[in-house]
């Protein structure tokens, strides 16, 4: 992909720039679509229609109108806030989320960097996200914000453990951390003949690993039922209480980018990444990107579905679930997958 761009573009740095901006374009278009989709999903689950007016067809331009409104809003910084860190926090948040897209293979022809630490790097760089949320919560100088920040710290540090343990069980089978190689190993059909050779069909324990991973990912991306950092009904808005205008918009964009990122990681680890579900049918770099994004959007849809179905957990329930159930289960599961690999 980069070679192709370098042959088309007049200058080398320009090719690199275009190459590195592709995920950003995808994130921005996806965020416009996903916010509209979230409202539609919410509406239909609650037996409403959702936005119907702006733009004509099923209110498709609602997000664009909201974005235009948000750009015009005043950028308010509270008088007693820590100005520098207050202003910087949204940028670090989005930077952390965007930086992780480097290691995601969007199709067989596109990956930002073929680093051999791959998925390990994604886990590391997304931990900057929790720091930026703590920064936002602390700098706002507001009780609700700080409480949200504290919850983030506790939640993210705890749920990193089951996430890493389940990622490790996939890595154990593939033998590589590079997500491109992980995806390539999942092409073709499995031993049963009709199922694709995806990681989720590898063994029954992999299904358990997937469930643990998905729960942990929901907690890491602060989605309902784990949205304690910004629980609007008890903490007003959590860490983003004091934010307005485009800075708040950046936090919103980060949340949706994070959702897409974690969905794509889920898809790459368990559902074959850019591999077509029909074997060689509709395969290739372009269709790869299509399948990758389609599968990602399905996982995003499941996240939205859960948001409008489940109530929020309490703080102690959240911690109990992680430390007493998910962590022991994920480690036992890791050992079982290792045994399965040894026997078969």
């Amino acid at each position, binding site marked *: 992909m980069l070679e192709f761009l370098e042959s088309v573009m007049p200058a080398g740095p320009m090719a690199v720039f275009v190459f590195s901006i592709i995920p950003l374009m995808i994130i921005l278009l996806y965020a416009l679509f996903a916010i509209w989709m979230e409202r539609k999903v919410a509406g239909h689950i609650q037996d409403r229609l959702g936005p119907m007016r702006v733009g004509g067809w099923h209110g498709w331009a609602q997000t664009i109108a909201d974005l235009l409104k948000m750009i015009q809003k005043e950028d308010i910084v509270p008088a007693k806030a820590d100005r520098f860190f207050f202003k910087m926090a949204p940028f670090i948040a989005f930077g952390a989320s965007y930086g992780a897209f480097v290691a995601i293979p969007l199709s067989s022809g596109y990956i930002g960097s073929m680093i051999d630490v791959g998925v390990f*790097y994604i886990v590391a760089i997304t931990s900057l996200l929790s720091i930026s949320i703590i920064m936002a919560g602390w700098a706002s100088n507001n009780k609700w914000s700080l409480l949200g920040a504290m919850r983030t*710290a506790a939640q993210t540090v705890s749920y990193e453990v089951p996430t890493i343990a389940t990622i490790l069980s996939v890595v154990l089978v593939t033998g590589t951390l590079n997500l491109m190689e992980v995806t390539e190993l999942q092409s073709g059909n499995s031993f049963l003949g009709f199922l694709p050779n995806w990681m989720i069909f590898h063994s029954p324990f992999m299904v358990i690993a997937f469930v643990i991973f998905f729960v942990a990912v929901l907690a890491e991306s602060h989605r309902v039922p784990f949205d304690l950092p910004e629980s609007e009904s008890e903490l007003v808005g959590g860490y983003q209480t004091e934010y307005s205008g485009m800075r708040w918009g950046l936090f919103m964009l980060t949340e949706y980018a994070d959702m897409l990122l974690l969905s794509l990681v889920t898809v790459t680890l368990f559902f074959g990444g850019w591999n077509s579900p029909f074997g060689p049918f509709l395969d290739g770099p372009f269709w790869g990107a299509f399948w990758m994004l389609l599968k990602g959007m399905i996982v995003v849809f499941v996240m939205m579905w859960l948001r409008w179905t489940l109530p929020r957990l309490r703080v102690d329930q959240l911690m109990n679930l992680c430390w007493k159930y998910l962590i022991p289960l994920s480690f036992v599961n890791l050992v079982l997958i290792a045994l399965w690999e040894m026997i078969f």
Partner: protein
Amino acid sequence: MDLFAVVFYLFAILIIGSATLMVFSKNIVHSAFALMFTLGGLAVFYALLYAGFVAVTQLLVYVGGILVLILFGVMLTTQGYFEKVKTRTVNLVPATIFTAIVGVLLISVFVSTDWTLAPLRDGESTMTALGELLMTDFMLPFQVAGVLLLLAMIGAVLMASRTRTPKSPGSSYGSPVSSPDSPDSSSQSPDSSSAGEESHKT
């Protein structure tokens, strides 16, 4: 000046600047956030030297783990949420003498050593080699480090459960991590502590 040098000097300035800020800032939370930039900049340095694994470990362990714990600790131990945690300058004379001695030592070592530059080697998979070495030649240190960490973990659990039981018998809040939201810790701190904080300042 090539791209490597540009990135190197940019992050060198960032590291030194944020480290200076970290040491001289009076506000502990500012120091912690400055430390984030120092550690992140160091991770970039490792990445520049093609040590991908070390760079990512630096990010994960220091920025994602230790720094979050530092911030968490600072915010939890603050008496009242809105008292800014200030540090004071203590032991001025011994600290200056000690720093001067260490500084002279470091600079003399830097000047007297004959530095040889190893060429950068790209494209090698450091992960596989590292894993194999850890599982063969360095098995014993690896296991000892693991046992040490396990002991530290057990110790932490023990300490947490010991201080917990006499304070609030019959409390339904199970884990110590959830205490910022539990009513007992947040309600007792502001008035009892703000007086102590003020007397401490004067």
